[in-house]
């Protein structure tokens, strides 16, 4: 796989489609030539499942995602990483301990995506989900967060943490908001003329509201730096 390819978690795909910003994928693919790789499990979760359950709330998003796959904007990928996933799931869910018990924080699907990224030698991960991102970028910040939320001491199992860090070493997590910013700076919102900057800010807020884990402070800081 190319250095600039992205493996996409369902969270970022959901935010962008839910915020009616799915065209960011089309734009970035055309302008930069990157590939957006989507694991089979993500397709099942974002397309197949919402199309086959009784609740029709998410059918529209599912159909938009299906269309992006049909258009070749999102590329389905698959590889057998089951044994690696099982091993890493055990590590990920024994990094932190509370009251002498391991804290189960991560799902096999998230670990599978990271194992798949490693298997395919893809370094960029498009992800809006917060816990897995913190586990990759700053596990000790996650520990501090757990202590604050749960009001208990959290112990770290260094062996499990090292295993996780070895897997995620060099991984670059990009949220949907940063994808939008890159697209914006390359002219994605140019047709809005003199309200382009205002639209960019509004779109960032919309992504936050759709579930992208970005703070108000981060949005403000980014907008302050934009001329």
């Amino acid at each position, binding site marked *: 796989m190319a250095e600039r390819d992205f493996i996409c978690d369902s969270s970022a795909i959901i935010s962008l489609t839910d915020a009616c910003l799915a065209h960011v994928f089309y734009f970035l693919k055309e302008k930069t030539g990157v590939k957006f790789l989507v694991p089979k499990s993500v397709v099942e979760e974002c397309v197949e499942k919402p199309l086959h359950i009784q609740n029709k709330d998410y059918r529209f998003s599912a159909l938009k995602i299906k269309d992006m796959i049909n258009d070749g904007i999102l590329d389905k990928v698959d590889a057998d990483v089951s044994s690696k996933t099982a091993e890493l799931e055990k590590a990920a869910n024994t990094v932190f301990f509370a009251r002498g018990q391991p804290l189960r924080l991560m799902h096999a699907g998230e670990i599978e995506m990271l194992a798949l990224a490693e298997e395919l030698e893809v370094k960029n991960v498009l992800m809006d989900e917060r816990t897995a991102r913190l586990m990759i970028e700053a596990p000790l910040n996650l520990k501090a967060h757990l202590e604050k939320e749960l009001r208990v001491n959290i112990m770290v199992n260094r062996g499990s943490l090292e295993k996780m860090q070895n897997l995620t070493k060099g991984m670059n997590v990009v949220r949907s908001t940063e994808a939008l910013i890159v697209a914006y700076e390359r002219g994605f919102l140019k047709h809005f003329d003199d309200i382009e900057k205002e639209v960019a800010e509004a779109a960032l807020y919309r992504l936050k509201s759709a579930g992208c884990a970005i703070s108000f402070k*981060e949005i403000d800081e980014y907008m302050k730096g934009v001329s």
Partner: protein
Amino acid sequence: MPLKELTHEVMDAFSKKNQKKMRKTNDKILAELMLSFTKEMFNLAVISYVLSKVLAKPRFYGRAYKESFERMEQVLNHMERSAGDPEKYNIAAGNLEETIGAMESEDQRFVKSLVEKGKLKTAAILYAQGMSLSLAAEMTGMSKQDIMDYSGKTMMADRVAEAVDISERVKKAKRAFGG
């Protein structure tokens, strides 16, 4: 805190129609749930949330709902007695949810039922506390979309210390896209 004691607290708050106490008990249950997730504790978290909402609505205090209130007290009693038997406990919790559903259906005002709202709020809190999105979805039976939608309207993302600042993040993203 063990399940039996927490169930007793829920029953006590309900029989005294003390909504404030019910909310506090719900907070306690949610903290416990993340540390040791069980289906019973999850059901109790949802029930305490739903009952706090029931207690907050004056329309449910009328004569028409007297029987339902009595039935709910009986079921809570049964849940407390069944705290050592997961199967019985969860069946009783299901009965309680059905009773609440029946109360609501007599005067339906929202698309989402109170029980569904309780499940969603519980899932979003687990995610806010530090559980991953997929795991919170799996454990509670809620969809990721629903949890993201709910969480996106809260301050959840503003309560975590980020390790990478936004300008660095944008730089990295630009590099990743070849800019």
